[in-house]
């Protein structure tokens, strides 16, 4: 019966998604980015890192679709390779936040007591810092590197996940079927894994999709400040930081990496908003 129910839910969700125009647009843009990331070496004609000083700061042309930067590197190729980096940043840091946030949220919601109080106070403290400032603080401790920027962005995103998961856990914990499972002598871990976690899945997926959007923005910001990816890595934030001083003479070096960030973040936001509409039980008709 459970399987039938799940299949019904899946079908209903898919049907609702097909009707969600902005969600589909977001999904399509995302698909383009993912394909670009996977096939980067086949799409780009130039090495994203090799310098070619004889062609520096060339405006967009047929040879260099988006022009070249101060080191003569093809911006189009750099943006294409950058897709890999930004997607990785988004997925890695959000996975980090998701794993820790879920563990903390589910245990604090389910067990309650002193553990709940402790976790929630720590979360409150984390939320007392402006996110980017906290991330900067963490990178300043760990050292400015792309990996550390991912860790920092992941850590600052933990509170959102923990809160969402805890709230859902609290609402499910009191349901009859959980009480029946308890009465039947089912172990706590089994209850959490079999009955609580599947119900937490929908809000986590929504949070994760929207979380990737902000993670990409934050990580690009860190790289822009020189606290994330270092040159010559073709990370979009780092590209902007390197090209800043050529804003007057070669604006294309600044325009395109920013657009790449914006559309990717926009796609995740559109997709996440659509998922939220679909999974929200209040919108079932």
């Amino acid at each position, binding site marked *: 019966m459970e399987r039938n129910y799940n299949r019904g839910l899946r079908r209903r969700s898919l049907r609702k998604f097909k009707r969600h125009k902005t969600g589909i647009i977001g999904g399509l843009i995302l698909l383009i980015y993912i394909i670009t990331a996977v096939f980067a070496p086949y799409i780009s004609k130039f090495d994203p890192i090799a310098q070619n000083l004889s062609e520096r700061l060339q405006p967009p042309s047929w040879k260099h679709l988006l022009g070249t930067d101060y080191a003569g590197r093809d911006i189009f190729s750099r943006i294409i390779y950058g897709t890999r980096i930004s997607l990785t940043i988004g997925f890695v840091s959000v996975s980090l936040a998701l794993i820790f946030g879920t563990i903390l949220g589910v245990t604090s919601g389910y067990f309650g007591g002193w553990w709940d109080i402790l976790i929630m106070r720590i979360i409150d403290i984390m939320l*007392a810092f*402006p996110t980017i400032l906290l991330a900067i603080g963490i990178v300043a401790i760990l050292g400015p590197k792309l990996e550390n920027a991912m860790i920092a962005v992941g850590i600052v995103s933990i509170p959102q996940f923990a809160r969402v998961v805890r709230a859902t856990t609290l609402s499910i914990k009191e349901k009859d079927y959980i009480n029946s499972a308890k009465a039947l002598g089912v172990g706590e871990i089994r209850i959490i894994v079999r009955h609580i976690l599947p119900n937490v899945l929908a809000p986590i997926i929504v949070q994760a999709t929207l979380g990737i959007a902000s993670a990409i923005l934050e990580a690009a910001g860190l790289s822009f400040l020189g606290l994330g990816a270092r040159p010559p890595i073709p990370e979009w934030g780092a590209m902007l930081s390197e090209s800043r001083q050529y804003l007057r003479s070669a604006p294309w070096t600044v325009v395109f990496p920013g657009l790449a*960030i914006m559309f990717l973040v926009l796609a995740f936001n559109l997709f996440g908003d659509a998922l939220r509409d679909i999974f929200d039980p209040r919108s079932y008709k």
Partner: protein
Amino acid sequence: MKKYIIRRLLLLIPILIGVSFFAFIFIRLIPGDPARVMLGERATAEEIDRIRKELGLDKPIILQYLIFLGNAIKGDLGRSIITREKVISEIMQRFPATIELTLFAMLIASSLGIFLGVLASIKPGSLIDTMVMFFALIGVSMPIFWLGLMLIWFGSLVLGWFPPSGRLDISIDLKVITNFYLIDSLLTFNFKAFIDTLYHLILPGFALSTVPMATIARMTRSSMLEVLNQEYILAEYAKGLPKKKIIMKSALRNALIPIITIIGLEFGFLLGGAIMTETIFSWPGMGRLVYDAIMSRDYPLIQGCILLSSLLFVFINLIVDILYAFIDPRIRYE
């Protein structure tokens, strides 16, 4: 109400302890000997010893924290490694510039955001609604540092309308009293400086305002839609009151409650966003100070900035909560 405020203040204690502890532990978490990391490889043993003493690194950790806390309460946050100035005076010098920029950005964000949100809510699904919501989505998806660069490029380099950086043109004299240039120029009847300060504020203020503006517009729209469906609004329509009056007076006033919370919360974002905006526009505020401190590994200064901006954030949240309880009495009894 009094009870609520007291409870809210008590809740603040663990947060303040936590925040100060993080700011304290920050320097101690740097891998290796913090004194050596701060001073670099070429430092002499004497210098390292002096910094170790200055930071109290030779004492037990709990004692170090208590000393740090005691000093912080007295307003002593140590000295900058680079300039040897007191951290607190460095921050206080820069603080007004950031507040001026943040308030200006908030003014743009809330007035435009509420206006756009109301406009969108009047006819949900219409072209205007779709456009407003689309711009709101673009607003939250745009990297603020990139928008800043684009504004400089277009508004300053292409059109030449606005200055690309700084707070005031060097050719203009201004007697500094409060360090809030808008106020200072008014106090000294220096209208030329006032106008010039405004000109300097527009680009960074607009860049900083986009994300909160988008959030406020979305919040206003959904809050208005909820209120507009209430029976008392329908009753006013039935009574034949003019639509403008219903929307502006009855609906917006009730829809404002959640909007105020969002405005308060967005201040936290602005403090973070100020780091990016100030760096790009060479705005001599706290954000720029944090950036420079990070670049020069001036850890006591970074520590001070982190501590003070999070305290400010906590304080703003407190005010928002109290304001919220004041407007909506149900909150007090939760």
